[in-house]
């Protein structure tokens, strides 16, 4: 039976540092997805995730098992991403994305292109929202965190975490609607 996160962390703190790799394997994909959505550049996202794990490894002694390890990692990631954003402006916007690929000749290629556009459009909309709401959505939908974990990662109450997700969805729906209206107007003219 696989060990849970807390058990692994306990063993890491006890000196079995090699087990930390298992935590990286478990949490890296979700952290990377959210970091990529926030930073928009693959290299920056990978750096941010690596910094997150490094910080967690360094601060292993301070981890409090009362809280969720996932929430702790996400707290670190959000802080690291914020620092990255402050340090450098974001790499791309929807209009600047270039598709550096072979010509699309298959249906698969076309669907990749469309999905890439949708992904970029979503990141664009999230960037236009208040940061706490956008982060709450990233944690809930990209990281699949529970509300108590979101509350822990964002250092707010459970109700505030739910409220941020609710307002974030409202805002995103509004922006999506506004965007599609603009596109339709553009098509007409």
């Amino acid at each position, binding site marked *: 039976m696989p060990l849970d996160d807390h058990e692994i962390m306990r063993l890491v703190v006890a000196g079995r540092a090699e087990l930390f*790799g298992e935590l990286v394997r478990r949490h890296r994909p979700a952290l990377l997805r959210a970091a990529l959505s926030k930073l*928009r550049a693959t290299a920056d996202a990978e750096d941010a995730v690596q910094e997150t794990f490094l910080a967690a*490894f360094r601060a292993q002694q301070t981890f409090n098992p009362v809280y969720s390890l996932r929430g702790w990692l996400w707290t670190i990631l959000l802080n690291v991403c914020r620092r990255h954003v402050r340090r450098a402006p974001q790499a791309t916007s929807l209009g600047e994305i270039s*598709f550096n690929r072979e010509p699309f000749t298959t249906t698969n290629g076309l669907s990749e292109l469309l999905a890439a556009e949708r992904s970029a459009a*979503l990141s664009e909309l999230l960037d236009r929202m208040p940061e706490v709401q956008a982060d709450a959505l990233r944690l809930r939908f990209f990281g699949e965190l529970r509300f108590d974990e979101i509350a822990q990662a964002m250092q707010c109450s459970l109700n505030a975490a739910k409220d941020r*997700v609710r307002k974030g*969805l409202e805002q995103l*729906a509004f922006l999506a609607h506004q965007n599609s209206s603009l596109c339709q107007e553009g098509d007409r003219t």
Partner: protein
Amino acid sequence: MNCDRAFDLITSPSEQHDSELQHHLQGCPRCRDLVEMFAPALHLLEEAGPGVAFGPDGEMLYWSSDSLEGNTDAQTRRGASRYDSPEYWQAVEAQQRRRGYQEGLKVAAILSLIAMFSVGLAIIGRDNSTPLAQVAAITTENCLRRDTDGKATAPALAACIACHLDESENSKLTDDANIRVRALVQRCVTCHLELKRPGTEIADLGNATANDDDIWGHSGGPCLRLASGS
């Protein structure tokens, strides 16, 4: 199921289609409205969110949850020994510490430049009637022409700029002299910030007395303020 639990399920990427939730929605108009209102956002997040991530060049990193797992396994399998090894994390930590140290040095250099520049301006601004000779003395006191060990670059440059680009003083010079002052400062900036200037390196400043033209170029000569005799 209460509305609070329904909200949890509505906003859960993996439980949105739960049968219990569907049953609750049939009997709760408030939650139905909520789902209707969130629909465009949920659709967007479902389509473009988890499992689909693209780099800035549009390259696909991961496609679906399944391929994400597969991809990650492959990635971590490739780097399994890397992540499992404490030495890896120690090496990364050392690398980050080095990077932090270098960034700290950069910030310190910039701050000292700003501080010296402010001090220079404050000295000049304190008394508008400061005689040119006095200003020139302040300037040349820190000048690398004298301080040839090459370490006081930023403070010396701040002094050059503070004095030589003082418009109230420069307006007293002839047009020709003014152009020469600006050319001189430009050369200061070029050398002191180690910008590339063909044939001149910072280290060359140590040989200033050997060949002044190497430092001051063809149109200059030493400090124009001193040369003007004021």
